[in-house]
């Protein structure tokens, strides 16, 4: 199934691998931070309401 890459195997595979890894890493970090801050904002807003 994997196409014949010959002497370029390392170059092709590593560039696909690293690119996907970097993109996924960036997306994961963005989503994690988004989730964390959304929760914190809800907490802070709830606290604001309680204190008026």
């Amino acid at each position, binding site marked *: *199934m994997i*196409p*014949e*890459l*010959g*002497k*370029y*195997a*390392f*170059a*092709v595979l*590593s*560039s*696909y691998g*690293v*690119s*996907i890894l*970097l*993109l996924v890493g*960036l*997306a994961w970090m*963005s*989503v994690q*931070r*988004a989730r964390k*801050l*959304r929760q*914190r*904002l809800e907490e*802070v*807003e709830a*606290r*604001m309401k309680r*204190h008026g």
Partner: protein
Amino acid sequence: MSIWEYANPKKFIATTTPILPWLTGAAIATLVVGLIWGFFFTPEAANFGASVKIFFVHVPSAMMAINAWAMMLVASLIWVIRRHHVSALAARAAAPIGMVFTLIALFTGAVWGQPTWGTWWEWDPRLTSFLILFLFYLGYIALWEAIEDPDTAADLTAVLCMVGSVFAILSRYAVKFWGQGLHQDSTIAKVGERDPLHASYYLPALICMAAFVLIFVALVLIRTQTEIRARRIRALEARMRA
């Protein structure tokens, strides 16, 4: 109804939240299709062999690395002229994404250069320009991180972005004078000319480019929302302490 209504943070979050799942889905779908097509179903090129498959990550990321900076410049200008906070935050949100694209372009360029040019790194105008672009991203992000007051930070980084753009273009041409390149010229815009990109590469390349654009937009929206929320938390906490 004008486009500036979206500069209201609340309105921005309200409109972008329902779009985001679709956008993310489209980004992932095009990326998967484009990369699988590029990896499995493209022929070897006569002069590059199988290494031509790197094209499908190298070129879109390089393109978006530059476009991300251009978007930051536009957002900075909007912030300076119209003082919409969302604009400044979007510029901030875009910087790390642009930096990652630059990194991808540099890395894939290096591993592509190794077998075809026989060297990992060549002080070639295009490669060098990207290294400089990477440094610009680093400085820009560092300046955002260093300044406490959000409005001051937004103003100063906007000034830096504008000055940096001028110098980035200047460096690009300076670097061109300074070295003869191994890097070939852009092939995308050469359709119909003597040495065009082969038709069997054209479609997957376009899909990959679309994928990178979608990824960029989706990530910018997510990160801008995060920055808006971070700002709001700061404001609320300051009010509570008062």
